[in-house]
């Protein structure tokens, strides 16, 4: 997905699945970008069914985040200064690293 509009998508080059790196974990990771530049201040939240809170991490300086989830579908919500609140649906599975880019 283009990064010139709000939304979530796979990074350029598609989703990378590296079972060896993921081991027995179900990893969801990615970056938050604004006009292609990393958003270094903000929070990524992983939510389950009915917006049930699962986990939250502060974004890294590179806009990065990572979750070790249970397998399944999750809502990924990003909060950032200026009232930014963007979300998308992501799927996690054991042995996979699901990569996602969020544009705000």
């Amino acid at each position, binding site marked *: 997905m283009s990064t010139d509009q709000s939304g979530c998508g796979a990074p350029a080059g598609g989703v990378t699945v590296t079972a060896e790196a993921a081991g027995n974990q179900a990893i969801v990771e990615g970056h938050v970008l604004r006009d292609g530049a990393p958003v270094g201040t903000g929070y990524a939240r*992983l939510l389950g069914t009915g917006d*049930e809170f699962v*986990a*939250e991490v502060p974004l890294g300086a590179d806009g990065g985040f990572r979750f*070790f989830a249970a397998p399944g579908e999750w809502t990924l919500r990003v909060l950032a*200064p200026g009232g930014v609140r963007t979300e998308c649906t992501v799927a996690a599975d054991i042995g996979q690293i699901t990569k996602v880019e969020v544009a705000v």
Partner: protein
Amino acid sequence: MSRSDVLVDADWVEAHIGEPGVVLVEVDEDTSAYDGGHIPSAIKIDWKKDLQDPVRRDFVDKAGFEALLSERGISNDDTVVLYGGNNNWFAAYAYWYFRLYGHQNVLLLDGGRKKWELDSRELSTDVPVRDKTSYTASEQDSSLRALRDEVIGAIGKRNLVDVRSPDEFAGRLLAPAHLPQEQAQRGGHIPTARNVPWSKAANEDGTFKSDNELETLYKDDAGVDFSKDTIAYCRIGERSAHTWFVLHEILGLPNVKNYDGSWTEYGSLVGVPIELGDAR
């Protein structure tokens, strides 16, 4: 205790930055967060290096707490305002220490670091230098801390509040989803525990929900009997410090303990009962 005795908002903190007798302290899981920028005049306490015993599994003893606060320039008379990341998990954990060791004037910044950042308030990388003090702590207040035998004895008798996520409670995960799941202990929860994830007590910006919402959450939704004593636990005792803060400090329930051994201890004990599955 009530909300106004234990919580301050960001405007209050902004108005008191640099005021003598007020010490801002950041406590984080990611202790590098402070180095990247903190509330002006705030000092740092490292929840692991500063607050844990370096050898055995326990937290700093009275002498260690006295040495830490003396070295950081905190006096017995100071008003200590704690804040941190992760919706104040570790700040609430540190708050619990300050209460355990008898510090009188301690407050939590509502919303912690997250609300401060989302409000785009000022952060500084200047590290303040404070003159050393001679801090005197009280003996540990055992009415605030539960140890394992007390927890086992409380099954079916007192309120046990498991504040982990539903997946951890059910035994599907062993740690929060932002942490690796490699631990070896058994999954599940202590029999008769109610599952009230800590996150239900917080708004999205990290501030605590209103007293009415909190009372409804624990009493009406989860069936916690407010006339009974309560023990809160999680995985390592920091999220349950957040819930201890809600029940004991905000709602003012008299007998609430934090079980800091929590699931990493209980889930590794030989012979204790464990229940699996979702909350009923």
